[in-house]
Each structure stands twice: as C-alpha cells, then as structure tokens.
C-alpha cells in the first residue's frame, strides 16, 4: 500500500515537471520575442546590451502597420458581424426544429472545422481568383467566414437548447410578433452565447493565418500575414523591428483572449466534436 502511494506521488511529480517544462519553454519563446523587440544589440549574452523603444517606431513605418491594422480591424469585425448574423439564426433552427437532411446539414457545418484550412484554402483561393475576389478585402472576409460561421453555429446551438421553449410560447400568447419575440425574448437570453461565439471568432480570426495568406493581396493583409512576410524576409529588416511587430500582434491577440476568457471556457477555443 505504501509502495502504491509512493509511485502515485512520483507519477504526480513527473506530470507537473513535464507541465512546468512545457510552460517554461513556451514562456521562454514568448519572452525572447519581447526582449529582442526592445534590444539595442543582443549577441552572445543572456540579455541585450541595452534597451530602446526605437524598433516600434521603425516597425510601424517599415511595415505600414497603420494600414495593416485598419485592414485587420475591418476583416475581423466584418467576419464577427456576418458570422453572428448568419450563424445565430442557423443555430436556432438546428436547436429547435427537426427537418429533412438535418444530419447532412450538421455534417456540412462540422466539416469546415475538421478539414485543415491549408487543404480547402487552395481550392477556395483558386475560385476566388477566378472571380477576381482574391487579393481584395472582400475575398479575405469571405474566406474567413468559412470556418467562422460553422463555429458560431456549434457554439450557440447548446445555448439555444437551454432556453425553455415555453418562454417563446408565452411571448406568442401575449401577442409578440416574430420581431419582438426575437429582440425582446431570444436575444437577451442568448446574450452569453452570442458574446462567447463572437469573442471566440474574433480571437480565431485575428490568428487565422492560412486562409488570409492564401487569399490576401498586398493591400488586404492582416497583421498575422504581414508578420509572416516580415519573418520570411528576415535579413532584409532588422530582427528587432520584426519582433516589435510580433509584440504588437501578440498584444492584440492576448488582450482579446483575456477578455474572451472572462466569458468562455478555454476548451471552447478548440473544436469539440460529439460522437
């Protein structure tokens, strides 16, 4: 019995050592980027020779961050707004009604979340190029809607299922039309679900590299794609100004992640597939 307790303790200890090791390394790679972005010169020492803010200014002008940020904000908010407008009613219909082809429709909504963006992104980009939409901000928004709409549907459906249908029936009995039923009964009750879905789509869209990369032109790059190109062309620019941009990207993402984590469970960021 004592032997069992000892192995259990050793096992638990080992688990936390592995977790600690992983977190220390992730923290290390993030801290390396942050430290380098403030570094004057950093060669062969633990920390840079000195610290400066100049790289943020040069990154801002070199990478035209003002226009990149405007594009990012436009894309992200368009994707959030459209995916909520399309996804929430679909989630409502799926939660409340049974109809033909419902299983096929559910599969249709799950597939874009399971197939990696790189796989369907290339045919999608081909179609968008044929339609002369690729390279424009409209094309980037359309591409990003592909995983966003199904994501909203899957996140919001359980929230709709929790609402007692009798509340809607009661509102109907008292003469509420569809419009009033929707805005005075459903939307207030669904607010937590809509908020969660919106924030998760927002965070995922800021970080969505593949689809934006495949469909963006020079004037429609979001922050993460601009970051890729600057890392790709490392050597042309100072490493520190690339990292200054990386820190700006990180700050944008993490602020929204922190806000999102107040309202959602972290596991919701990952697709959950029911058997």
């Amino acid at each position, binding site marked *: 019995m004592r032997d069992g307790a000892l192995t259990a303790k050793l096992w638990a200890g080992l688990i936390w050592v592995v977790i600690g090791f992983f977190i220390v390394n992730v923290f290390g*790679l993030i801290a390396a980027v942050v430290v380098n972005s403030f570094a004057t010169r950093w060669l062969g020492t633990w920390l840079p020779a000195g610290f400066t803010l100049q790289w943020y200014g040069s990154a801002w002008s070199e990478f035209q961050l003002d226009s990149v940020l405007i594009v990012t904000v436009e894309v992200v908010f368009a994707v959030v707004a459209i995916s909520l407008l399309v996804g929430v009613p679909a989630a409502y219909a799926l939660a409340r009604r049974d109809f033909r082809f419902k299983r096929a429709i559910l599969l249709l909504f799950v597939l874009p979340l399971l197939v990696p963006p790189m796989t*369907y992104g290339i045919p*999608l980009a081909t179609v968008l190029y044929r339609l002369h939409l690729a390279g424009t901000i409209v094309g980037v928004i359309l591409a990003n809607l592909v995983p966003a709409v199904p994501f909203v549907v899957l996140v919001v459906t359980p929230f709709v299922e929790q609402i007692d249908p009798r509340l809607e029936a009661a509102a109907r009995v008292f003469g509420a039309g569809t419009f009033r039923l929707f805005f005075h009964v459903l939307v207030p009750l669904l607010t937590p679900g809509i908020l969660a879905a919106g924030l998760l789509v927002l965070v995922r869209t800021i970080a969505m590299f593949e689809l934006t990369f495949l469909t963006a032109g020079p004037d429609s790059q979001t922050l993460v794609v601009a970051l890729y190109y600057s890392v790709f062309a490392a050597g042309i620019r100072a490493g520190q100004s690339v990292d200054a941009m990386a820190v700006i990207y990180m700050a944008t*993402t993490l602020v929204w992640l922190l806000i999102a*984590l107040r309202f959602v469970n972290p596991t919701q960021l990952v697709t959950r597939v029911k058997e």
Partner: protein
Amino acid sequence: MSSAASIQRKTVDVTALLVAPGVGLVLLLFLYPFLYGFLLSFSAHEGVGLRNYVKFFSTPFLSQTIATTLWISFPATVVNIGLALPIAFATRRHRLQRLLTAILVVPITLGTVLIAEGLLLYLGPQGWLNRFLLVTHLSTSAIHLTHNYWGVFLSLVVSGFPFAYLLLLSYLTGIDPVLPQAAATLGASPWRQFIHIYLPLLVPGLAIAFCLSFVQAFSVFPSAVLLGAPAGPTRVISIAAYQAAFEDYDYPMASAIAMIMAGVQLLVVVLILAIRVLFYRGPTVGPKG
C-alpha cells in the same frame, strides 16, 4: 388543437428556413470550391485526365512530400497525444486546472507564425536554450534545432500539445464520475481505474483527438517554411501545393496536390477509426437510478 397544430406547422417552415443562409454560405464557399478543385485537378493543358496525378507520383520532388510530411506529423501527433493523455488525466479535477488551461490556450491563440518566430530566437544558436545547455555543461557545443526537422517538429509540439490536451480534457470531464467511483469502492487503484474504466470509455475521444491532431500537423505550413528547411528535409506537401498555385500559377496541379493532401488525411482518419471500432462502443454515462 387543430388550429394550434396548423400555426405550429406554419412556423416550422419559417424557423427551419433560418438555417438556409448558413447552409448556403458553407455550400458556396466550402463545398463548391472543393468540388471545383476536384474537377479542376483532372484538367491539364491538353485535355482531361489523370495527368496531374501521374506527374505528382512520378516526380520524386513532389511525391516525396507525402513521406516527408508523414515523417514530421505522425511522430509529432504521437508525442502530443502521448503527453496530453496522462496530463489531462492527472489534472482533470485539479484546483489549478482552469489556470493551466488558460495558460495552454495562449500558444494556440498566438498561432504558428508567432511560435515559429519565437522558436527561431529561443532555440537558435544564440538563444536562451543553447545558452542554458552550455552554461550547465549539458552540451559542449550549440545544438542545431532551427532550420531543420527538429524546428518544425518542436513547433508542432508547442501548438499541438495544448490542442490535444484541451480536446482530451473535455472528453475526460464528460465521463460520468460515478463509474470510476464504483470501481474505487470495489478496491480499484487509480491506475486500474484508468486502465479498466477511463481508457475504454475514452477510446472514441482519443481516436477523434488523434485524427484532429494528425490532420492539423499534416497540413503544417508556416513553421515548415520559417523554422524548417523548406527546400529539403521539411519540404512538406503544403509547400508543394502553395508553390504550384502561387509560383507556377498551375491551378490544376495545385488542386491535384490539395486533393492528394485531403486523400492522405482521409486515409489516416479512416484507418484510425477502423482501429477504434475494435474497442468498446457504448455510453460514457452510467445508468441513472
């Protein structure tokens, strides 16, 4: 009653129609491009046929990308699931679990581009890891972990392990605690509870988590370019598809590579699910009563 039923029927149609815009969008932007790409992959400059596929499999520079990608993505998936399973099990009811999940969600949120840039600095010859290894005399010379296989592999672990952990955690917490409690009452140790109760019940979730992790790893792109050796050892299939589309402007060939990519992913998923059928199938929730 009959009037209520007729009102009901009238609203049924309208409410069900709310799903239409979403379905239309996914059909137009997901299914249609996929089918379009599928058909396009059979067209070539001189007519219709399997030419693109024949070219892919007869050109080692192209066909090797399948083996290269599997050689990175399969071990990475095994490591990620192998680490995530015991860790998710050990922390499933831990008081620090919520904090841990919040920390682990950070690398997923930051995405592969930032992880690649961070690892370039962190693992590089001047990076903190090599500095630590030299100072502690764990290594006598700097070890090369960037611009090769290991850079890509490690980036897949950094982004893939948290993903696998969060997935498995949500499956584990979905198992009714009454079942292992019953086993514990009958004297089963935590280890035996895991082997005889949790593991069989977790097989479906494990299979799905493995498939999703693998499919993600197989489509690795930014870190294979930034952190690997994209001309050689880490020339993964995504790079081949990207080059066909955006450097050669050969959209039929790019579509063919995308279809082959989807085909390999599908094959592995079918294989995993076929293995999974050999195990227990049934409810993960105990009988009520």
